[in-house]
C-alpha cells in the first residue's frame, strides 16, 4: 500500500539546496587522466565483459559460416590439389548426384514417419499420464530415460536387438506369433526403414511426451469440469477443448522435433550403414560420406548449404505458424 503523503524533507528536492548538498558529497574519482580512464572503463564495462563471449561466438560460428561459403565455390578436395575457383560446379555436382536426390527423399520419409509416430505416441502417453495415479512418478521416470542416452548407443543397442542371426527380435516375435519369423531388419526394405523409425521413436517419444504433458497440465481444469457438467462426450472434449488448447504446444513440439529429425545420422550410421546400397542414406549421412569418407569437402559444403536452404523453408513455415498462434493468444 502506497503512503498517502511523503513527510516533508524526506527527499532533497532539486534546487539550490539540493545542488549544494550534491556538491558537498566527496568526489569518488579523482579528476584527470586516471579518472577519465576509470569513467571510460565504467561506461564500457558491459561491452568488455561481453566481448570474450562475442569473440568466441564469432570465431566458432560466423567465421566457419563465411569460410564454408568460400569453400563451396572453390575446389577444396583432399584428392585434387589446389583451391581454384569453380563457380557453381560444387552445387551442380550435388544436384546431379542421384544419391543426393535420393537422400532427400529418405530424409523426408524418415523424418515425417518418425515425428508423426513420436507425436502420436507422445500424445497418447501424455493423456494417460495427465491425471495422477499410483506409480505415476516411477512410470514417468522410466519413460524419459531414453532421452538421456546417446543416439549412437541407442543405434548400437537396436542393432544388437535386430541383427540376424544373433539378435533376439525375430526369435521373440516368432514365439509371440507362433510362427517362424525371418525378417532382415537391417537389410530388407521396408523393414530397415521401420527399424530406423522404431529406434528413433524409442528415443524421442519421451521428448514429445514431456512437452505435451506440460501443455495438458496448463489447460484450466474448470473448462473440463464445465464440459463434464454439460455432459460432453470424451471425444468431443478432446477435439473441442484439449486440441485447441494444446495446439501451440503441439506445434512447438513438432517443430523442435522436426528440426532434429531432419539431421538423422547416428542411428543410420549404427543400424544400416546407409545400406543396402544407398537405400537408407539420409541427407546428413550423404553429406558425412561425401565430406568425411571421400573428403570432397567443397561438394559436401555446397550440399550442406542446399540442405540448409531447404530445411530453413520448412522450419520457417512452421515457426511462422507458431508465432501466429502465439500472437493470437
Amino acid at each position: 500500500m502506497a503512503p498517502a503523503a511523503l513527510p516533508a524533507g524526506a527527499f532533497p528536492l532539486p534546487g539550490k539546496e539540493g545542488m549544494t548538498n550534491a556538491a558537498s558529497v566527496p568526489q569518488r574519482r579523482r579528476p584527470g587522466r586516471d579518472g577519465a580512464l576509470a569513467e571510460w572503463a565504467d561506461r564500457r564495462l558491459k561491452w568488455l565483459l561481453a566481448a570474450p563471449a562475442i569473440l568466441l561466438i564469432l570465431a566458432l560460428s560466423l567465421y566457419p559460416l563465411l569460410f564454408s561459403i568460400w569453400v563451396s565455390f572453390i575446389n577444396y578436395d583432399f584428392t585434387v590439389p589446389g583451391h581454384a575457383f569453380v563457380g557453381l560446379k560444387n552445387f551442380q555436382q550435388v544436384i546431379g548426384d542421384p544419391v543426393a536426390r535420393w537422400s532427400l527423399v529418405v530424409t523426408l520419409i524418415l523424418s515425417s514417419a518418425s515425428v508423426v509416430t513420436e507425436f502420436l505416441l507422445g500424445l497418447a502417453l501424455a493423456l494417460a499420464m495427465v491425471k495422477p495415479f499410483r506409480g505415476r512418478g516411477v512410470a514417468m521416470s522410466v519413460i524419459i530415460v531414453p532421452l538421456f542416452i546417446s543416439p549412437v548407443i541407442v543405434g548400437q543397442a537396436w542393432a544388437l536387438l535386430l541383427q540376424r542371426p544373433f539378435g533376439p527380435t525375430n526369435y521373440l516375435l516368432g514365439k509371440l506369433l507362433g510362427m517362424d519369423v525371418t525378417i532382415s531388419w537391417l537389410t530388407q526394405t521396408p523393414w530397415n526403414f521401420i527399424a530406423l523409425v522404431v529406434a528413433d521413436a524409442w528415443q524421442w517419444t519421451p521428448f514429445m511426451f514431456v512437452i505435451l504433458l506440460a501443455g495438458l497440465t496448463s489447460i484450466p481444469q474448470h473448462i473440463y469440469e464445465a464440459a463434464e457438467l454439460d455432459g460432453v462426450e470424451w471425444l468431443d472434449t478432446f477435439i473441442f477443448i484439449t486440441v485447441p488448447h494444446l495446439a501451440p504446444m503441439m506445434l512447438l513440439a513438432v517443430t523442435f522435433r522436426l528440426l532434429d529429425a531432419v539431421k538423422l545420422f547416428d542411428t543410420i550410421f549404427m543400424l544400416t550403414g546407409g545400406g543396402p546400397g544407398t537405400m537408407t542414406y539420409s541427407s546428413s549421412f550423404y553429406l558425412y560420406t561425401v565430406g568425411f569418407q571421400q573428403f570432397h569437402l567443397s561438394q559436401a559444403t555446397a550440399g550442406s548449404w542446399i540442405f540448409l536452404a531447404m530445411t530453413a523453408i520448412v522450419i520457417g513455415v512452421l515457426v511462422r505458424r507458431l508465432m501466429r498462434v502465439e500472437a493470437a493468444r
Partner: protein
Amino acid sequence: MDERAKRDFQAGLSAEVDAFLRGEPTRREFIRRFGEMAGMIALSSGAVPLFAQDALAQAAVDLADPGTPLGKAQAAALKASTEGPADGSAFRAVQAAKKYKGVTLSMTYEAGLQALDPRNFSGPVWEQLTGIKSNVVELSHPDQYSKPIAEHIANSGAYDILDIEPAWTPAMADGGVIQPLDDYIAKFMNTADFDDYHPIFKALPTYKGKVWGFFDDGDMFALYYRKDIFEDPKLKDAYQKKFNKPLAPPATWEDYSQVAQFITDQMAPNVYGAAHFRKASAPGNQYDFLQQYRANGGVFFNDKMKAQLDSAAGIKTFQNMLAANKASIPGNNELDAVSVWVAWLQGKVAMIYSWPPTGRMSANYSQSAKAINFVPQSAIAGKVGYALVPGNPELAVGYNKALAADSANPEAAYLFMQWATSPPVSLARCMLPYSLRDPYRLSHYNSSLYQSLWPDAKAYLANLANSANNGLLDMIMPGWQDYALSVDRMCTAVWAGTDPKAALQTASAEWDQVTERLGADSQKAFYAEYLKLPGSSASNTVEKLGKGVKID
C-alpha cells in the same frame, strides 16, 4: 547446532560477506589463497603426473611368462634391442632414440584390440628402452584415414605416427599428410630387413620411387574349414554320389557355393555351409568382390581408364556370390567380420574365409588373453584346416606405419617405427594373443616359436605364406576410398535384390566419375604403376612371377 551457535555462525558469515564486498583484507586473503591454489595446481600438473605417468607406464608393460613361446620371443626382442647385433635395426633405433628421452609420440591405431599392442607391449617397452612416451590414439578404421587428413588440413600436428592402409599411401603422400622415410632409412636402418618381407608386402609402402612407411600387418585372407565335417565318411559318400567328385576344400568359387549349399542341406540348422561379411559399410564387401572379380578374369580399367566392372567377369562374380549367400547361415547379409567369427567359433559354420586372426582364435590361442575374452571360446579347436581361398586371396587392408608430415618429432617417430617393425620386435608383436597384427616377414612364417604356439600353427603359417604367394592387392592408387565405397554400395544393393547388371552399371559410372574428378591421365599413370606390383592381378601374383615362398 544450538540457537546461539547458529546465530554466531550467521553473524560471522554475514561479516565475512560484508568484508569481502567492501574489499577489506578478506578479499586480498581470498585472492592470495586462490593464487596459492592455482600455483599448486600448476606445479602438480607438471610434477605429479610425470611421476604418475612413469609409474603407470612401468606397470603397463605386459610381458608373457618367459617359459612360453611368446615370452621367449619377447625376450629375444628385448635382447636385440639392448644387446644387438649392433647393426640390427632394433638396436640402432634404440641407441639413436635415447636422445629424445621425455618426448611423447602420438600414434594412431585402430580402436580396440589393435591398440592393445602399443598400450600393453610395444609402447611401454619402448619407453623403458628409450624414455620416449607414447600416446595411443584409438580411431575407428575409416577414421584412420579421415582424422589424419583433417588434422593435417588444420595443421594441428596432432599425430606423429599413423597406421594407414597401403592403398591410402598415394592419396596421403600426394596430399602432404605423410613424409618419405628414405633419408632416415639411409641413416638408421639395416636395409637387409627389407629382404625379410614376403615379396608381396615388400613394395607396398613405395610410391613414386620413395618409401612412405613400413609394412606392418599381413592381412591375407585364407580359407578356414572344419576338418571333421569335410572328413565325415557319410558326408563324403553323399557328396561323391551327388556330384561325382570328392568332398574337399573348394578350389573354385563355383565349387565353393556348391560345397556350402551341400553342407547346409545336410546339416542345417545345426551347421551351415558358410558365412560372409556382407554388412554395408563394414569392411568386407569390397575386398571379397574384388578378389573374386579378378579371379574370374576381371580387370579394373581399360586402356582409356574406363571402368570395366560391368562385364562378364562382374556378372559371374555376382552369380557366385549370390549362390554362396543362399547357401549360408541365416542373416548372412547382415554380418560383419566379428559376427562371422562368432558363428564360426561356435561351430555353426563349416567354412569361412577371413583375416588371419581366425586361425589364432580357432585354436583358442587369442582367447588366452583376458583382453580378448569377449570373443567366444572356440568350440572347434583342433578341428580346423587351412587352405587357399578359391582363386586368389585378397590382401584385405594391411597396415603401413607412416610418418606424419606434421610431426614435431619426426626422427623420434621414425625410430619407433623402425624398431617396432624390425624382425625380432615385429615377431613378438605378431605373437601377442590379443593383437590383430598378422605375420608378414619371412622370419615370422619360419619362426619356430610362432610355429609352437598351438599344435598346427606351422600349417597355419605355411598357408598364410602360400596365400601371400597367390595374393591380390587392393587398388593402390588415388581414389581407392571412393572406388571401394562404390563397390560396397553395389554389393549391398545386389544383396537386397537389385539386378546385378544394373548395380554393375551404376558402380562403373561412379568409378568413371571418380577417375574424371582425379584426372583420367594421371589416374592412368597411377594404374600403370599399380599393375607393375606383384599381386595387382591374378596373372601377376608372386607365385606366377616365380618368387613364391615355401615354408617347410
